[in-house]
């Protein structure tokens, strides 16, 4: 059967096409807001490009030194406390928007990374070490410490819960 144009466009492009389409609409109806949005986008690009470069370096590094066997030992089903620790610390230390880390996580998942570790990594990205002083300024040290403790705890709870949910098959 012949595929139509929409079927030919892969999912990864659909997202960008929708975004470009929305920008065109904004350009047509509110030119000044569109220009402002475009400059915000350029500013965001400036921030994420160095992080993207870092993500690529990590992927390259993992491809050289980590084969699926090694990966399973560190972040696989039987990784245990070590796996949690790696995911939590990596999540806290990672910078930039969450979506720039998707390529690396996808790569690690394909090599055997547990779903619960992906959740822990993504959740702990909420703890931004360089931004903690700003948070302390607005909310105080006590609140920031208590909040950080609960966030780490819930990253593990959410990881375990999600794994249980994903195992549950809908008939």
């Amino acid at each position: 059967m012949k595929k139509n144009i929409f079927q030919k466009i892969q999912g990864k492009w659909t997202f960008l096409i929708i975004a470009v389409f929305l920008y065109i609409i904004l350009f047509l109806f509110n030119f000044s807001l569109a220009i402002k949005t475009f400059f915000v986008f350029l500013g965001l690009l400036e921030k994420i490009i160095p992080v993207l470069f870092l993500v690529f370096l990590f992927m390259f590094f993992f491809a050289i030194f980590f084969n699926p066997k090694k990966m399973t030992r560190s972040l696989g089903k039987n990784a245990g406390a070590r796996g949690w620790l790696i995911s939590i610390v990596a999540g806290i230390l990672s910078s930039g928007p969450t979506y720039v880390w998707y390529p690396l996580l996808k790569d690690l998942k394909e090599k055997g990374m547990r779903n619960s570790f992906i959740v822990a990594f993504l959740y702990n990205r909420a703890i931004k070490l360089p931004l903690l002083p700003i948070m302390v300024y607005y909310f105080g040290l006590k609140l920031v410490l208590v909040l950080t403790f609960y966030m780490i705890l819930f990253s593990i709870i959410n990881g375990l819960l999600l794994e249980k949910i994903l195992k549950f098959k809908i008939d």
Partner: protein
Amino acid sequence: MTFEKIKTSFIKSFQSFSRMLPMIFGVAMLTSLFITVLPKSFYQKIFIGNNVVDPIIGAILGGVVAGQPVVSYIIGGELLKQGVSLIAIISFILAWVTVGVVQLPAESLVFGKRFALCRNILSFVSAIIIACLVTLTLSIL
């Protein structure tokens, strides 16, 4: 480690990395759109001053909008000064960084629909629970 191994690893990494780039640019474009379309004054009008409803509103708002986490701290700090409850602010900040409605299609594409949906729902509920727990713990300490 051979040159061939490094070359193959580079090509493999570059291929899987470049496959994700259109999606990353799409999310960045939509995030920028959110940042400019929603003015800061918008957030003040949303909260109603109810300690049960406000954390839920905070989590919904935080999950739907997108942007740098630092923006959520600043908005949260300013809303706190204007009398919005701490419990609502915490759930707002938490959902801002852990729930991503804008990037949900991209997350589904990478990890699967079920994973992305479940993770975001869990993060949404956690934002409200953590907000309650933090407020409770602070009142005891």
